[in-house]
């Protein structure tokens, strides 16, 4: 496989700044996200990781106090353009939340909700999407015989993989995950990480995590955020063994956060 | 995107319909009633008891006093019972029982006012007549019937107010060794004061505006009552009794009585809403 840097970036964040009232949450951030890579974002709490992620699919639009400036190019077009379709954007940039939120329907209904909104009507096509996305999320074997069971009855780890599968059914170009394993046991965590490894052959992945070990295990590049600024970003192995910024080093050895 | 904007616009327009209704009601009631008040003169309209529509006399003082008398009586009864019930339901009652009792209060609110009036006529009025004297149809009978009718309003709003008091207050007080009753009357009732005032005022609005039940039990005599056993006519019952055959100036005068009632109730509502909002803000502030 080509090193990711040689691809053209799927997402290019340029000078992204977010303020809420007088507080600056993100401060002039610029970074590219490439196809076929897993980019981990680490940093102490309140460093703006989640806000950054929620800019990528414009979920911050729901936060009325947030003022966003700068540009985010997805395949070359700015997602903040006045004419941009946010629903379309969120299909291309699929998000998995920290806490799994299965909608109060069956497993099957959860999976076909997104594709149906996107206009897929054909039953066979929907069934196919359900199967492939569940397989990609390593959940197919566990639920294939009870697709019409309420999603709430699944265990926490299964629910999170369902949420992952639900996003994959949209066939996104970028997958963004906000601390997806913070509420999961180690075995479920491993399954998600395995799934991400398989998935990077198809799409770009941005993973926000509070767990530096997870970043080390499950990413190709890592970015370190501190107080809304990008301190350092490089290949994961190099960042962990040889950070160039003192603040990165302090964080990694547990000085703060 | 454009479709979404259109939907938002339509919803916004629909959301204005409650306001539009309120404006229409205000405009039409005032348009029909206000000219007559101005023609008659404030003094002859509000401070005269001379109501002889055929002779062109439109003094509504006896009805104002009648309305005030039954409202006051209703609040003494309904306010006490209603607040008492709210305290029991929030402070001294197992939650299971409370969740059963609340719908029964709603049921009480759902019974038609004509049924209340009728029950007053067949049970209460004879009792008053034989044990206390007078015609039975009286301020007292109307007060009791109205008291029961406003009880659900007082209770449910008081319950909301009491529930809005932060739980920590209660725990703090009980931890200091206060009995539940001491906590209730020294702390909870004070903390929920604004909401309880709102409940009482809204209850008063209900009592003042109630029509059919009052017609049936108040006796409808056009005179200022000398005691609680005398019959009275309220503003509302006068409108309902005479609307059927009134025309011309007479009808205008009934609308004028409506204007009076409307204005008083709007003032009540505004005061109550201000108090209610204060409770909410206090609750949120914690």
């Amino acid at each position, binding site marked *: 496989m080509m090193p990711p840097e040689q691809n053209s970036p799927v997402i290019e964040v340029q000078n992204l700044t977010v303020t809420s009232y007088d507080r600056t949450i993100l401060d002039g951030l610029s970074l590219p996200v490439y196809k076929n890579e897993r980019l981990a974002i680490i940093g102490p709490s309140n460093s703006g990781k989640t806000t950054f992620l929620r800019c990528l699919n414009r979920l911050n639009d729901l936060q009325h106090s947030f003022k966003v400036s700068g540009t985010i190019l997805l395949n070359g077009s700015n997602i903040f353009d006045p004419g941009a379709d946010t629903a379309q954007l969120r299909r291309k940039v699929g998000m998995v939340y920290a806490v799994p939120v299965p909608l109060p329907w069956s497993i099957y209904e959860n999976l076909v909700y997104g594709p149906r909104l996107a206009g897929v009507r054909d039953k066979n096509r929907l069934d196919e999407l359900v199967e492939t996305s569940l397989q990609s999320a390593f959940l197919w074997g566990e639920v294939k015989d009870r697709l019409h069971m309420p999603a709430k009855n699944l265990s926490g780890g299964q629910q999170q993989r369902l949420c992952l599968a639900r996003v994959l059914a949209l066939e996104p170009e970028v997958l963004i995950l906000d601390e997806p394993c913070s509420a999961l046991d180690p075995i479920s965590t491993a399954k998600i990480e395995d799934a991400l490894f398989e998935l990077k052959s198809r799409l770009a992945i941005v993973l926000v995590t509070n767990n530096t070990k997870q970043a080390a295990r499950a990413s190709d590049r890592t970015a370190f955020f501190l107080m809304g600024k990008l301190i350092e970003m490089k290949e994961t192995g190099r960042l962990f063994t040889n950070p160039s910024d003192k603040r990165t080093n302090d964080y990694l050895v547990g000085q703060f956060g | 995107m454009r479709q979404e904007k259109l939907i938002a616009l339509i*919803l916004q327009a629909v959301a204005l319909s409650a306001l539009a209704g309120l404006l229409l009601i205000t405009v039409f009631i005032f348009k029909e009633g206000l000219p007559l008040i101005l023609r008659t003169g404030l003094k002859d309209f509000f401070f005269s008891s001379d109501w002889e529509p055929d002779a062109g006399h439109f003094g509504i003082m006896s009805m104002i006093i009648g309305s005030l008398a039954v409202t006051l009586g209703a609040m003494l009864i309904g306010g006490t019972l209603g607040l008492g019930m709210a305290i029991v339901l929030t402070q001294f009652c197992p939650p299971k029982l409370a969740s059963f009792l609340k719908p029964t209060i709603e049921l009480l609110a759902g019974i038609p006012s*004509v049924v209340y009036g009728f029950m007053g006529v067949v049970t209460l009025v004879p009792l008053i007549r034989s044990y206390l004297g007078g015609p039975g149809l009286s301020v007292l009978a109307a007060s009791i019937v109205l008291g029961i009718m406003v009880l659900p309003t007082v209770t449910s709003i008081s319950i909301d107010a009491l529930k809005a008091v932060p739980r920590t207050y209660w725990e703090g007080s009980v931890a200091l060794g206060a009995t539940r009753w001491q906590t209730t009357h020294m702390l909870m009732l004070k903390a929920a004061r604004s909401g309880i005032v709102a409940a009482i005022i809204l209850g008063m609005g209900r009592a003042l505006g109630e029509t059919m039940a009052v017609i049936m039990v108040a006796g409808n005599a056009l005179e200022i009552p000398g005691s609680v056993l005398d019959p009275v006519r309220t503003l509302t019952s006068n409108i309902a009794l005479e609307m059927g055959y009134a025309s011309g100036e007479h009808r205008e005068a009934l609308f004028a009585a409506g204007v009076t009632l409307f204005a008083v109730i709007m003032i009540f509502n505004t005061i109550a809403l201000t108090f209610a909002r204060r409770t909410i803000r206090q609750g949120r502030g914690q």
Partner: protein
Amino acid sequence: MKRISPAITQLIAVGCLWTFTLLTLSILLFIIAYILIQGLPWLSWEFLSQAPESMGRRGGIFPMIVGTFMVAGLAVLIAAPIGIATAVYLTEYTREGKFTFIVRFGADCLAGIPSIIYGLFGFVFFAIALGMGLSVISGALTLTLMILPTIVRTAEEAIRAVPPAYREASYGLGSTRWQMVTRVVLPLALPGICTGIVLSLGRSISETAAVMLTAGSALRMPHSLSDSTRTLALHFYILSREGLSMDKAYATASVLILLILALNLFAYWLMRQVTRRNG
């Protein structure tokens, strides 16, 4: 004078309060029992299915049943979509601010206006100014305004009870706001919304003063929306007030009470569904 101990004070106070509560409940029970005991023996299929004769002294109440459901049903049919749309706008489409404040204030004021004022307004506006006359439609439109605040309030509460996380999940899967509202929020809020609608239907059926001035008191069967009609509550009022027939009055009252009981039980059952799901 010796000070009474707090424990005794508490005993007396709580005793009084419980007496109040039990008194209220027994009044409620007494009213229902009294009406049903006096009225049920006179209830029969003929009474429910026949037209009244000689002003209601004989015969049944069928036209009033039809009239009541036409007026109340139409009122709910008009008020429900308006009320739900208002609630959706207030909760999902706008922030708390001047607009929501004004709309809520309007709704709260509407809720406080007495029914006789609604009657006066409906009479001059719908019946006279709009030329609808004393009719089913005048009555229904008047009641629409009357029950609108209740529907808005209950729908708002039901919508707010839907967990915010579901909204984010839906947005995350590429739904527009409208899709999120119609496919996720409203289905979940439906039982709560229905509770408000059912209670409003009950209130419309019970209402007397406002329909008396707007729908009139015709005894015959209403054949169209522009016909005058007499609702059950008004029929009961006229029967008892004019001493036409106490038996028929009791029977009519028991029909009313049974209707209200059934609607309240239904609303209670719906509410239980909500608590069970969210709990």
